[in-house]
């Protein structure tokens, strides 16, 4: 068969799929029950709800999307990680500008003696903004500038099949 996975046998995979299905259903039920049983403050509810969603999402990406066995997707992983940092940095800056969430003013004032945001943070955030499109560009140029290699160069031989139960 194809491909880049050192994936387990199909019957084995199918078992994993059912397991993940179970995890997703249970995650949804937990979210639901928490919401109707407890009156949580918004911040806690947000953290809890998104944490459960994150766990569910990781299972979907790792198993359903067989990312776990597609290690060759390293470039995409890199892009996604950068996207995340960019996103987080951007959100942080905007929220700061909003002025109230998160309330970092006092902590900042104590540590630096000023309410101003240190310049280096702004520079770092901007660099993240540059890094993302740059990584895309580098990746694309790298992909397109290479002639398609000759058939014989099969990479799979280089890899030793790892045993996954």
């Amino acid at each position, binding site marked *: 068969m*194809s491909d880049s996975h050192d994936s387990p046998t199909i019957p084995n995979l199918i078992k994993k799929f059912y397991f993940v*299905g179970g995890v997703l259903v249970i995650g*949804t*039920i937990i*979210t639901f029950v928490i919401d109707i049983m407890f009156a949580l403050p918004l911040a806690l509810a947000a953290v809890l709800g998104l944490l459960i969603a994150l766990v569910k999402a990781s299972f979907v990406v790792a198993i359903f*999307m067989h990312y776990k066995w597609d290690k060759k997707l390293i470039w995409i992983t890199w892009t996604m990680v950068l996207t995340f940092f960019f996103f987080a940095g951007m959100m942080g800056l905007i929220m700061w500008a*909003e002025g109230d969430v998160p309330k970092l003013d006092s902590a900042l004032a104590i540590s630096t003696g000023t309410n101003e945001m240190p310049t280096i943070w702004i520079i770092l955030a901007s660099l993240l903004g540059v890094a993302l499109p740059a990584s895309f560009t580098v990746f694309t140029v790298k992909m397109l500038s290479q002639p398609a290699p000759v058939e014989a160069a099969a990479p799979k031989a280089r890899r030793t099949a790892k045993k996954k139960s």
Partner: protein
Amino acid sequence: MEIPYTVKPRPDTGLYNAKLGIWLFLASEVMLFGALFSSYVLLRVGAEPGTWSMGLMDLLVGAGNTMVLIASSMFVVLAWAELKQGNLAGYKKWKWATIACAVLFLFVKWGYEWPSKFKHYDVWLNNATVLQEKFDEGYHEVASHGEHGDAAHGADVEKYVKKIYTTRFFKEESKDSQLAFDDAWRNGTLALSGHINAYEEAQIDVRITGWKADAGVSEDAADEALVKQLAKQDTEDAAGLRLNGGYLREKTDYDTAKRAEYALGQAGFTVALSVAGYKRVEAHPWMWRTKRVTEDIGGKPRVSSIVFELDDSHHKGIITLNAGDIKRLSAYEPKHSTFFGIYYTITGLHAAHVFGGILIMLYNMLPIGLGLWHRDREQFTNRIESFGLFWHFVDLVWIFLFPILYIL
């Protein structure tokens, strides 16, 4: 031209081309949805207490739909596993199950969730006095019907309104919710939320008051335009009306009257609309806006009053609202508030992805799509895998949407 690396992985990327392509596409999708998610979060944290109406969401429906989408995500990967084992029948079985789940998801969203919101209203009144008077009025109206007469009184209706307000904006009763409610109650910014059960619709008289010969329309053309607007299309009447004026139609509906006013205006006539009376209509109208009720027709509103049933009041809180007292009226449509604006944007975009997915799945089930299976099994399997990646992503988006929209 033969497309390279549809089956074998391309040596330098280690993936067959379609898989790399779909992952890049998903990376761009992450940014698209990421932008909307961050907008939502910023709008949410920036909202004043008492303005974010997430308590309106039906959690059970949301959780049910989440389950449906999870199931479809499982089925699609099982369909791929069957193909890997060379079992086309198994593939078809799971694929139909996936399609069924996707259709069910959209049916719940487009057939139930959205339409029920389009029939659900908030009404803001002009001032606090009107609001408070309405509660006594609601009591009298119910009492005069003789039903629940002993149970319902003004304070009860206030209780319903408070309960709706609290669950909607604060979920639980607290000091903050009490303060916000008292404030809204006093200054009249409180919105009544519920359904329009019936309304009094204007019956309109259309009268011709004159005709300008110098408007650039010939007499014949003017008469022709007039005949088209007459109930009985009689040419004799037309000439008389043009010269002497008079009633074109009596007690007609709004659309007919407005159409006549426009068409005749074009033909050089001056037309006066006036309200002859009101007719009670028993209906639950969709997507009404303020203007639909308060529009001025010859000095009177298009709808004189609406019969409004408050949410959760079990028919006890039925009140009549006069058009003159209504400041704003809106169904739960995108223009209702920031919350609904972003809610429909995000869920709409997600639903569009589900809809597109259904089309692709159907293609892959039809002979035209299945042809590839008979030509090249591995390529077809890879195609299904690529689609699966997209479908899991759609599921992923919903996994995050569910807590954000229904719980936070």
